[in-house]
């Protein structure tokens, strides 16, 4: 599975706005490049990213060939309750990666 770096604060106060950062290793081959014989490198990109907080979807992104390698997403959410935040990436050639982080809200 691809290596991913996910950053979620382990603790937060109820109602706090928290920043979530995710970075995943992926070449994001656009499908437009050719080798020196003119043969196209087939497209191989991540197409979807979803983040769920205790089962509820809080962030979703669609990715396209113009997005750079090793996509980085950072976004904010409100800390509502303790639980698990799940991150899912999926893409071409059956690519799939999942990470999860626990958060304690007081």
């Amino acid at each position: 599975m691809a290596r991913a770096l996910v950053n979620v604060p382990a603790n937060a106060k109820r109602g706090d706005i928290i920043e979530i950062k995710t970075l995943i290793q992926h070449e994001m081959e656009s499908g437009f490049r050719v080798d020196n014989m003119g043969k196209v490198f087939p497209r191989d990109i991540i197409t979807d990213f979803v983040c769920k907080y205790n089962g509820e979807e809080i962030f979703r992104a669609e990715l396209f060939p113009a997005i750079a390698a090793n996509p980085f997403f950072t976004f904010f959410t409100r800390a509502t309750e303790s639980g698990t935040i799940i991150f899912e990436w999926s893409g071409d050639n059956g690519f799939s990666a999942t990470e999860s982080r626990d958060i304690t809200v007081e």
Partner: protein
Amino acid sequence: MTLPVISAVLAALLAPELNAAEIPLSDRKSGYEFMGAETRAMQDDDAANPAMLWVLDGENLWRRKQATAQKSCAECHGDAQTGMKGVAARYPAFDPARGRPVNLEERINICRSEQQKATPLPFESKELLALTAYIAAQSRGMPIESKSDEHLAPFLRAGREMFNLRQGQLNLSCSQCHDDNWGGKLAGAPIPQGHPNGYPLYRLEWQTLGSLQRRLRGCLVGMRAESYPLGASEYVNLELYLMWRARGMKIETPAVRP
């Protein structure tokens, strides 16, 4: 043409090496200082720095048992955080068995073939970059050592000569850009001083991690000069000179550059 212009042109033609003044130690700046705020922020935050993905891979490789000898790097060298601290700040270093300097990548491969009995990793392969980045990152924040090894003197001299040698169809030397015209612009991009203090680094243009030799090859191609195969002694000599030129500057590995 007026007389002062002609004499200035003549002076430039007759004494090119006089223009190539080394940068005073106090005026040296890391490539970091030439970058925009966004790229700096990317390097400063380990959660946003894509090179950290390679560093984490390198940590895994450090612990993995290799091939026939079934030995991992960690079994001999222990914890990299202590055992590898400062190593990147003193490479390339003289290897008595080979009678020449070797860089960090070569040292890893020597260890692999002699101690681990494993096949050497190809230059610029993901694994070699990951291992090099992991080892070099242990020296982050440490000053680059100045070379006092007398064995290195002839190689350092060769590296310096190459740095000042005009080559390629554009007839340029490294020094003309990075000693004489740093801070200026080349095709809209700032010309840095060309210090090697962040390698292997994540270059946004490459969209991946790359070694100093890959960067040097890029510069040579840009000068329309003939580049050398990766691992060539010419590159190692140049690396040695660049490290000497950057002595005392802090290691930033794994750095991010545009």
